[in-house]
């Protein structure tokens, strides 16, 4: 789990990067990770399957409007757990906020595409952070 936390921290750092390239790659990777994590959790006990599927779908929808990275490696998806999905959901929220901020231009220069990506990232954040049933 420690590796997972590190990987997410690295992604969060990259997202803060002012130079578009790295931040764009991080946004793409976070959305990819969100989709895989949600998919892995769909049939887990205690998870609302509908919400998990909706989260995965929104992550992919958002990724449609972003440009794919040329380098780097995919982040390994952790075991689906409340903590893992929680931190991933926070990152998704972060992506949405960066896309809406002025530095979002560095990630996706086209305004319409940027807004669509931000909207889907927000939806993904909502679904992913609420999909576990309260104990």
């Amino acid at each position, binding site marked *: 789990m420690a590796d997972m936390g590190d990987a997410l921290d690295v992604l969060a750092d990259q997202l803060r990067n002012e130079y578009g390239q790295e931040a*764009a790659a991080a946004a793409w990777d976070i959305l990819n990770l969100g989709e895989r994590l949600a998919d892995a959790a*769909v049939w887990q006990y205690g998870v609302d399957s*509908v919400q998990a*599927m*909706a989260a995965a779908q929104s992550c992919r929808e958002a990724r*449609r409007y972003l*440009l794919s990275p040329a*380098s780097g490696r995919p982040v390994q998806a952790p075991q689906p757990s409340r903590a893992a999905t929680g931190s991933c959901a926070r990152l998704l929220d972060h992506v949405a906020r960066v896309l809406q901020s002025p530095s979002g231009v560095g990630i996706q220069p086209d305004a319409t595409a940027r807004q669509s990506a931000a909207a889907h990232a927000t939806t993904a954040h909502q679904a992913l952070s609420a999909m576990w049933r309260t104990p």
Partner: protein
Amino acid sequence: MSVELGQLFDAAVEHIRRARPLASDDGYTGALLASTLDILIQLDIYSRELNWDGAGEEGEPPAAMEEATVHLRSHLIEATNYLHIASRLKPPATAGATTPLHDALAALAASRDLLHTHRGPDRQLLTPYALLLTQAGSQKYLALRITDVTWELGRLATDMAERSDPAQVEALQSARRELDQATVLGRAATRDTYHETGSLPAAPDTRPIPFVPAEPPAKTLTHLENASEQLLRIAFAAARTPTGEPRLTGFDLPQLARSLALTRLLSAQLLQHISANSPDTQLALHAELQTSARRWNTVAEAWHHLVDLNDPSARPLLPRYDYLTRQRSQAVPPPQPLTPHPACEIAATQALRTGRLLYGPDWQPHAGSRTHPPRPRASLLADTEGAGPVLHTLYRMSMAGRHLAAAIPALIEKAAHSLVTDSIEHRPPKLPTTMRFYPAHHRQIEQINEEYRAAGVAEGTLCTKLLHQAQAAGRPIARARLDAAITEIYPPDRPALSAQQEKILERIIADIERRTEHFTSAVQRAVHQPQNPPHPHNHTPAARHPGR
């Protein structure tokens, strides 16, 4: 429920029957004669379009009708002639009087329009049903229904003959005789009829039907069925999409699969809710719907590490243009992301509709299934008129899923060269570490196609279970016979040509091209030889190689 072919013929016959009381009124005779002639013309067009007289254009499917139907047409023409005589003797006294025959004519025209929707402007096949219409059984069905109309027209002519002047009586009686003969001959030729052709609906367009907030549940079911029809059409067209038209990309396919998974999952919840009183139905179907949902979600998961290069968003982000380049207007804007394929939106709306049917009109998928209490069972069942229509809708959705699962693997095989992956599993060891993506491994393609096949099998089982349940509930699904007939002609689990057949075909085409080339050059040599100066003997190949 959308209108079906058989219903339109039923309506036409019914309207002609309603016109018969008017035949005793002398004032209507003229108008009735004029309308009857219009209907006969319509029937004549019908028979000509079906190529019954054997004079089919080149490339058209061969006329499948037997000799007797050729006589049917000639009798129709004779009847038209006699009625022309009768109408000349009695021109319409009440101009523009509307009779029920107008409605009959409209119903017949609508039935022709319905058949036309299954073909494109160039007569290309748009749905698998267009294939069915080229079969003898379906054409016989149409002949049979046309004889239903001619029989009713004959009765109408008899009624009109009762109160006409003698000259007209003769013409009307002759027309009646011809119509009856047409009926007898037509019916004689209509053994082995595909009666299921009657449940053929019009082919839908592929525009998604948006959800309106105040949509009543019965309407929702109709829209869900129409959306299934749209997906079926898209599945049929998927492998045949010409270049330039939007095709399903590697981005659309996983979204489509996940929407289907979501729809099945919500359907399971819907069924669980409405059939709480009948645990048998619930047990049998709930498990199948869940399995189908799992299969489709697995399909979507198989796409995790794949990117389609045909999608503009698959291009990497490049450094910004410098000031000078922009100043010289040499900067090219980055490619715009493609809008999703209509199929994605149709499938997503289908999932949304299914959810809203259960959880109310303001439900959203990301809100999950806990925040909204489901609609009260009693009122939901009252609105949908029982569980039967719901089972019908679920069947249609599942059938569309089955066709999609069958059609997509061929599409993926075609587009496999443009798929790249960043999966660590298949990464070639010598690939530079800076490169993230590399061409997709054939195992990945095989695996995806395997998942689609598994989803197709799950949908097939689900369809069968739904049919059994609907039968048990006393609401058999008539449409299933039509689907079964198509499955026979166009099996969803078998491509039109196997890979081996395609290879053979390619070889034959290459061979033909080579021969044509040889032939053309030989002809050119033969034609141009007189103009050319004769070759000196020592330059001809034969002279150089005397032994050959």
